[in-house]
């Protein structure tokens, strides 16, 4: 039975996933499904189901969501959280599911695009500072407004932002991001079920 093979039963899974202790009320989940019913991603991806993911975490089943494509789809719009009768902050769980998945080499293709942005932000003190050509455009737009050509960020701010990257381990983390031994992910929550696809 395909569904049963996911019963990998790790008693401590919940604590391991929520290592930052940000969703400590997770076991108050009523399995009511309001999160799923209000989720824009679920409306486009029927197998994406926050309630099911929560139940897997609480039951100690990691195998299925770890290798799933579904967990990379969440928009973080928090419709789930604002509709949850018990104020469960699913996006903060989702953030940590993704950390655990990447530790196990799943889903790296979904974070690699941000490696470059993070290394750039480390230099700029700003996120999405573009390359030379884009910079010219920003300078032109800002000058048209009569504002300084570049956002007024000090050299000190930039140096200290960079230093915080280094001091908190973020530099090492970002530099180590690599998709070399990446394991494949797919839509796992459809397995063993009839789908229209």
């Amino acid at each position, binding site marked *: 039975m395909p569904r049963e093979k996911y019963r990998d039963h790790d008693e401590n899974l919940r604590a391991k996933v929520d290592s930052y202790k940000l969703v400590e009320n997770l076991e108050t989940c009523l399995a009511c499904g309001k999160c799923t019913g209000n989720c824009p991603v679920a409306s486009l991806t029927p197998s994406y189901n926050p309630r099911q993911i929560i139940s897997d975490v609480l039951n100690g089943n990691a195998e299925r969501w770890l290798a799933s494509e579904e967990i990379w789809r969440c928009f973080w719009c928090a419709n789930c959280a604002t509709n949850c009768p018990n104020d469960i902050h699913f996006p903060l769980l989702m*953030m940590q599911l993704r950390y655990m998945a990447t530790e196990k080499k799943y889903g790296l293709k979904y974070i690699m695009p941000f490696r470059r942005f993070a290394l750039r932000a480390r230099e700029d003190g700003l996120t999405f500072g573009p390359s030379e050509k884009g910079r010219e455009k920003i300078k032109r737009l800002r000058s048209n407004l009569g504002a300084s050509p570049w956002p007024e960020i000090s050299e000190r701010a930039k140096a200290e932002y960079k230093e915080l990257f280094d001091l908190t381990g973020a530099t090492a983390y970002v530099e180590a991001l690599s998709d070399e031994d990446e394991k494949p992910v797919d839509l796992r929550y459809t397995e063993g079920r009839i789908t229209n696809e």
Partner: protein
Amino acid sequence: MNKERVVTPEKMFPEVPEKIFLFRSCTGSMEYPGTENAIKEVMKSLGIEIVMDPDQTCCSGYLLTCSAYKPEFSLAVTARNLSIVERHGLDTYMFCNGCMGYNLELAHIMHEHPEYKQMANDVIAKQGYHYEGKTEIHHVQELWYRLKDEIAARVVHPLNGLRVAVHYGCHYLAIQYNILDDAGYPTFHEEIIEALGGTPVYYKERQMCCGYSVGRGFTHKETLVQPHLYKKFKSAKEAGVELMTTCCPGCNTALDREQPNLTKRYEEEFAIPVIDIGQLIGLAMGVPLEKLGFDANTIRMDGVLKKLGIGKGDNHDN
């Protein structure tokens, strides 16, 4: 700070502040620099002094939620930035839902877990900072709503019934306490549009998110973001929307920049310009066009401006 979920603007601001700290948004100062500029201009007309500080950095929240790095970094960045605001003795005002949501959530985590606050303070102490947790975090739109009548009294270019669709953005409505409305059925933007003389349009997918946060615009553009936004714009078009407003330059990027891609993919034209609600307030209050920065937009404002009879060189300083 008020721990009730939803509060009235009068309760939130018994006194309107004379001076505020405006938190620089990366997207709002680079992608759509007119946003930052418009907000400064409107605050000036309302008699509210703005303080910014070049030592403030990016809030670091976007790439955190894209899983590019871990929370330790963002906690330290939040503590450092907010400690800079505290040195000015002011409250913090955001004009990006991202900056707002991330700063507030990370500050909340530090309040709830003193060990994280300690960790962040230990790191920033090396740079000579200390975060107390005193500065309150607000969104500038809260002042727009509080000062709705004052804004209405200063309107020189009424919107003449222009059909405006608002987009609230999730990261404000999802905040856990001290906000103007939750994600149930917010109307405070519509009330502002009415105060400017516009017609708010309650389109079907009004509360649908922009789809761009946590980087899905980079990872799932075709599979998710475009079909998602197509639903939104289809419902806006059906409702006869002429202009859409945001209160987050990140949402603005998604809603403005994706439209040509939707047109190409779904062979349907939308051509709905998307601007910040602060820019619209500025426009109605007679801030010169040159200071509003609509030239950064992909979907041109020309049609709307023509309809309102506003042209370049119009200047109604009040």
